[in-house]
């Protein structure tokens, strides 16, 4: 792929604790074209955030080890020194963090944090930075931005903190934005507004976005492609409309069936049985096998990500299985 802005190849992340080393993601590969919005979903703890942090070069150096390549506009970020990374971070690539409170600095006002980010990367005056910061706060829908410029993070509601984070991430107009659960604390009317702002930047500036979320409805409305991870591996990748109607991996199908909006009220929700294996319990073959209703002896062999015609799937039975998607009960034609 030469037209990709971001090309992640075989990205594996390991954490060290004492003498032990634990692998949390295994050979993750995907691409994003300029202006494209790609969704990243997967079970809690499968490695979405650490993948985002690896792209940003923000994993704790001493305690982690990253292998593989991260090409952004042809340059390999994985090979960059911390000093080089600091220069591109915030400017070419930036991230909206999952937990705004831990990403915002409690001793500076949110206005200061936005203008400082801007001044660190662009040659602008203090006054201009302030004006741009207020503009950014307006853009993300913070009421009375001039007043809120001087507010400290603890004085804001959960959703306002999240929007302040978005303003920081966007103020330098990066080429690639990693948005980690950017709208979980927002009501749907404000969420719609933020998604429009983000979509506008993608269309106008060709900004590409990796959209990490658990909200499959939001993915359906914002992304053109979907990458699904399970237990540290990519298990499915494809066009969003295809995956929603006809998921090809049993885990993707299980996720879609667990949606409360599709179940009868107060009824027991169809969760996927069992639990994600720990590293010590990781099965040798397909990692989803202990929880998969379709497992056969062939699944005991290691599974690789295979081209399925319009996407990629890590399941040897993908051709024979017809799995339910978001359209419960109805036959997906």
């Amino acid at each position, binding site marked *: 792929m030469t037209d990709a802005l971001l090309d992640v190849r075989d990205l594996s992340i390991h*954490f060290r*604790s004492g003498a032990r080393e634990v692998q949390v993601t295994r050979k993750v590969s995907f691409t994003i074209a300029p202006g494209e919005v790609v969704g990243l*979903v*997967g*079970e*809690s*703890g499968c490695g*979405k*955030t650490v993948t985002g942090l690896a792209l940003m070069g923000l994993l704790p150096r001493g305690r982690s080890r990253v292998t593989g390549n991260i090409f952004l506009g042809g340059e390999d970020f994985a090979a960059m020194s911390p000093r080089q990374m600091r220069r591109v971070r915030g400017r070419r690539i930036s991230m909206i963090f*999952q*937990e705004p*409170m*831990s990403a915002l600095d409690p001793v500076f006002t949110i206005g200061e944090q936005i203008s400082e980010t801007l001044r660190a990367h662009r040659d602008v005056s203090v006054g201009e930075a302030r004006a741009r910061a207020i503009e950014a706060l307006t853009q993300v829908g913070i*009421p*009375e931005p001039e*007043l809120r410029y*001087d*507010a400290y993070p603890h004085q*804001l*509601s*959960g*959703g*306002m903190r999240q929007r302040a984070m978005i303003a920081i991430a966007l103020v330098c107009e990066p080429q690639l934005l990693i948005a980690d*659960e950017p709208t*979980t*604390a*927002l*009501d*749907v*009317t404000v*969420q*719609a507004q933020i998604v429009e702002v983000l979509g506008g930047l993608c269309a106008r500036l060709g900004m590409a976005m990796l959209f990490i979320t*658990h*909200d*499959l*409805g939001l993915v*359906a*409305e914002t992304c053109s492609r979907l990458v699904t991870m399970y237990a540290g591996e990519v298990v499915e990748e494809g066009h*969003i*409309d295809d995956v*929603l*109607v006809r998921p090809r991996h049993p885990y993707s199908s*299980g*996720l*879609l069936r*667990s*949606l*409360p*909006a*599709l179940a009868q*009220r*107060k009824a*027991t*929700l169809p*969760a*996927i049985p069992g639990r994600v294996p*720990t590293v*010590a319990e990781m099965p040798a073959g397909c990692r989803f096998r202990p929880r998969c209703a379709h497992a056969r002896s062939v699944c005991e062999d290691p599974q690789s990500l295979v081209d399925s015609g319009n996407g990629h799937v890590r399941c040897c039975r993908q051709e024979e299985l017809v799995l339910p998607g*978001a*359209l419960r009960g109805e036959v997906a034609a």
Partner: protein
Amino acid sequence: MRTATAVPIITAHEVGIHFPVAGGRTLRAVDGVSLEVHRGETFGVIGESGSGKTTLGRALVCLERPAAGRVLHDGDDPYRLSAAALRRHRRDFQVVFQDPNAALDPRMTILRSVREPLDVAGELPRAERTRLALEMIERVGLNPEFADRYPHELSGGQKQRVCIARVLTLRPALIVCDEAVAALDVSIQADILNLLADLQREFGLTYVFITHNLGVVAHISDRIAVMYLGKIVELAATELIEARPLHPYTRALLSAEPVALPSHMRSHQRIVLHGELPSPVSPPSGCRFRTRCPMAVTRCMQDVPAWREVEPEHFCACHFAEDVGDAIVPQRPGGTP
């Protein structure tokens, strides 16, 4: 089902919570809110970001003292209790916080964090406390291997489950769940919602469930309150809110919910709100929703809409609630049949 004479577990009467802000002004985060929560029910709270849901939730469990109005627990004022009695009383009224980091001490292992409330209570032998904590860690779907880890070694959703386990060990009477399942994937979210429902059946637990996820709130709540800018604007049983929303803001919320359907199957009846988001420091005159309301007329600028029982057991504050109710509701695909 509840009887008419049962005393609500929580009664809020004209509760106001105010914060000082820059320029010597006052921000009324919660402004004259009244509600009753009954034992054994799940009371859902949805609403605009910054409308005061978290602040209200904190006030309901005595973590925020109202500047105006009163909060009663089982009909009594908890602030009348002695300090020691209030501490003991608080154990029955717990919160799962929106930000999991706020509740977890970074220097404590997961096991200690989950066991801590039991340690503080100091009623059980240590081995028993550890056993209960480990059991709860498993019930929220975490491998016991996590017990010896520290919060920074966990993902967002894993931390959130630790917070839920921590609160559940105490077997409280009421739990305020503030975005408690927001960081979880839908399968684990389903697991946790099923677990909460089981515990409710088993122990008669009461939940106040604050969330932005309409699918979640509609699935588990008996009644739903909708907040906008410090006030409750609509309150009714879940079926009524879903089938016949009477407030224009509720309608906009229901219509804007993203649905997991391919593009060609989504309805195009989404109500997009325009207009400026108002500030709670200087709320608009008349109706607070009028700056974004598609139905606003001159009267809405002058008169504050009264809080009234528009239809039986269906409360709403809008001058034109009857007209809103009669308008065609955009259907949520796959919603409650």
